[in-house]
């Protein structure tokens, strides 16, 4: 065990930031959604790394819950994307803008 936990935190933070960038920058709904998955994945990496360094099993158990939530969100999100594509023929979230903010 020569890798300090800080390195894992850094890697996780970078992956999380890339995911956040994707949500803010990309206009394609599917890519935005993949970016959210990347953010959840970064959180999982953090849980597992801390679990290893704290010598605590709970961190790994928590990953299961995050993965379950991710799966539920994927099901709902992709269904929404398909439904909205049927009506609008587009999943560009800038074109999905009937109402003014």
């Amino acid at each position: 065990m020569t890798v300090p936990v800080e390195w894992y935190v850094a890697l996780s933070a970078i992956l999380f930031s890339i995911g956040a960038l994707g949500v803010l920058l990309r206009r394609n709904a599917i890519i935005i959604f993949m970016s959210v998955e990347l953010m959840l994945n970064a959180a999982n990496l953090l849980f597992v790394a801390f679990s290893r360094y704290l010598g605590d099993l709970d961190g790994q158990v928590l990953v299961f819950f995050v993965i379950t939530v991710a799966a539920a969100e994927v099901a709902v999100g992709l269904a929404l994307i398909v439904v909205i594509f049927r009506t609008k023929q587009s999943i560009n979230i800038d074109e999905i803008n009937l109402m003014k903010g």
Partner: protein
Amino acid sequence: MEFVTPTINILIVLPVLLVAGGGALLMLLELFMAEERVKQWAPTLAIIVLALAFLQTIGLWGQTHTTFTPEGSSPMVILDNFATFLNVIFLLTGFFTVLISVNYLPRVGLNRSEYYMLMLFSLSGMMLMGMANDLILVFLALEVLSIPLYILAGLSRPRPESEESAMKYFFLGAFSSAIFVFGIALTYGATGSTALPAVLAGVSNGGALALAGVAMMLVGFGFKVAAAPFHMWTPDVYEGAPTVVTAFMSVGAKVGGFAAMLRVFVSAFGSLGQTWVPAVAVIAAITLIIGNVVAIVQPNIKRMLAYSSIAHAGYILMAVAASVNSPDGVSAALFYMFAYLFTNLGAFAIAIAAERKLGEGVMLDDYKGLAKRSPLLALAMAYFMLSLTGIPPTGGFSGKFFVFRATLEAGLVWLAVVGVITSVVSGYYYLRVVYLMYMYDGEGELHTKPALLTAVALTVLATLVLGLLPGAWYEITKQAALQGLQVLAGG
């Protein structure tokens, strides 16, 4: 390895089980009964389930229980007066939502039994928000609360506004959940646990890692309760969703977010108060200013009420910011949410009565001449608008009074000043509705059925009682607040 059964007291989570089980029961009924009959019975069944859960909840008032306690660690679920009080708020929200939905849904062609299932599931998530004693349970409760709401917002598909509403709500919800769970992961790393008592014990030595975790969880909650600058989704989602769903989420989702926020921030992160209180205070001030100022230019009642709900999140955040340094903060927040429940749902009930078809009759101009068409409804609407502004004798006034008092006690004088000024500004757009109703003539039909009128009558009555006798009710919220905080500190 030996399996050690955790201590389980099922009675404590029975209200939640009843509500979630009611949703599952409805689903099973569809297997055995004709669809039309299920649709007929769904609202009744929902009311029965909510009433049973309500009786069970009331019976638990004054008691403190914990359950799902594994060997040698802290309980997963906690039921104290704080949680009981919030459960009462959620169950009443569900009850009024059923009352205003029962005739609206068939009228606009959305009568599906899934509506009631999803509403009950969402309610069970809200109830868990106040009872969770572990961050991961807070996260799961947040998802159980949110996922049905994403679907409900899109219920009137293929109407594009509704689909768009669901889509926006979903993306910002998923984004904020990811931020929230990253915050949980950081807190876990800093304190070595996600159980709130252990977080409380470890957070003050957690260093910068704990602070980053707290900040990300604050952002996550900010999205959920629609606080500025995380409020962008609110107006579009509220406008596009079917009005009954808007009513449900404007109260339920918001109070749910605050339920967990109060428990997590005031209790578990209390020792970091000097760090997060200024941040919450600034967020509260921005929320108040944006919500109240932008509401002025909204021509649509649903958008106006959306910005108004953002503004009310600001007032509750004031109470949250005051909670660390003032003994009245938590109870003021609870009282404010209790009053907001009746006032806001009452206002939405009238908006539903005035909605001719799906998405028609929701402009402020449609309220012209309401006083001539239906003097009683106009009077009720005027009363709700006074309550939202905060003019006595209404529940809204009492709520604001307690919140401002707590803010002053906590030494946040500038925030109280912002609160008072924005309240005055809010008078403009609330009272404009009253002006339109009484000073103009206008045409339009009203859909008043007994269920909806019952909801209006009950909410008016409750707002009046909270306005005239605030002291007695404040004592109750005070008990809820005190007991809620003590238990967690004891672990």
